[in-house]
């Protein structure tokens, strides 16, 4: 049986935090299990949580007229699902649908924001870590936009 501290430190986003910081972060989290087909959050709703996926697969989707729900990206083990809690207006920009049954640590974003405001050192550290994660996702999105497998003639 792992403690929450032990579980969350396995994520690159939290790896390297000192034990005191880990305890603060873990204090805002809880273990959850979500069945396939369920939603973790819905586009437009208030964003006060985020998830560290431990097992399973989550599709981040948006509705496209005439195409229905379109998956933008999937999130799997070790990855963070949800960043809208971090920045105003704190509303989900995408919908998260569980594709394969998920076990995750669900964090109370409002709780973590409050702790970051009270402890600017922790706040800066966490923000830097999430910024790195967001940069990785931005780079992936660039690659998708470039359409690297597009047509070439020969």
């Amino acid at each position, binding site marked *: 049986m792992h403690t929450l501290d032990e579980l969350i430190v396995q994520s*690159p986003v939290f790896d390297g935090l000192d034990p005191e910081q880990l305890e603060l972060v873990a204090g805002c989290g809880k273990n959850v299990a979500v069945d396939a087909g369920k939603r973790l959050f819905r586009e437009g709703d208030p964003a006060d949580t985020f998830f560290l996926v431990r097992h399973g*697969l989550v*599709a981040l989707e948006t509705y496209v007229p005439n*195409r*229905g*729900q*379109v*998956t*933008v*990206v*999937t999130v*799997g*083990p*070790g990855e963070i699902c949800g960043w809208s809690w971090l920045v105003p207006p704190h509303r989900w920009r995408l919908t998260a649908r569980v*594709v394969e049954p998920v076990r995750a640590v669900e964090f109370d974003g409002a709780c973590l924001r409050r702790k970051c405001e009270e402890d600017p050192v922790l706040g800066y550290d966490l923000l830097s870590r999430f910024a790195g994660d967001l940069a990785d996702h931005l*780079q*992936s999105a660039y*690659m*998708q936009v*470039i*359409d*690297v*497998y*597009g*047509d*070439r*003639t*020969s």
Partner: protein
Amino acid sequence: MAIALPERSAVARGAMTPLPYRVVRKRRENHDNWTLELEPVAEAIEPIGPGQFTMLYSFGVGEVPISTSGDLERGGTLVHTIRAVGAVTKALCATKAGDVVGVRGPFGNTWPIAAAEGRDLLLVGGGVGLPPLRPVVYHALAHREDFRRIAVLYGGRTPDDLLFRRELDRWRGRLDVDVTVDAAGAGWTGKVGVVTKLIPPAAFDPADAVAFVVGPEIMMRFTARALLERGVPAERIWISMERTMRCGVGLCGHCQLGPTLICRDGPVYRWDELAPLLEVPEL
């Protein structure tokens, strides 16, 4: 007075003369990719190695370089998987069993499979980059005990663009196989995202792994970056380059990349040796 002419040999024939090969089997892989199995009409080219390519000639249309995608352990026919995207490749993909095409080669170097023996082997393919890796997969399956963990990471544009889907399912029993697509509709239940996203969660020891990477150049750059970030040493990352190739033997210069000619010195290169050249836009 009669002059005795030497017998026609591969050497006398030269590397620029295509040999006639007959299409014996053709299989549709997806909406725009076909696999052709070819047999020599008479004289055969030298045995082809994993990573090498031939120049396939659609008579009257033109030639294109195509990597072998077959099971070289089994031998027999010459196997190429071709994407119908230009005039020549469309003509090749339009051939039927019994038709004859021209073959020159084999050209280029091979994947350094021996360097991966005793280590974890990571094969990363993007788009039509999977066919050049397939001979390595066949080799690894036939000599499974020579390697530790083996992972095949494959990224495609959409689910409809993926190649060898049934084979990927079969390989899953003996190798780690992970697949993602850049974009998908409602029917796809797999991963969505770029192929580099498959690298962080893949099960391998970066300090003792060898990676072979094939795909569009930009995909290989991002993949190499992700492998380096994971801790794979640059000298154990190998990529297969594609540039416009015409002669196949280092004469015409079409495939020149700075000081190297890809048809002659490549197409397989060590990442630390080639990366500086890829950073020069003028090349």
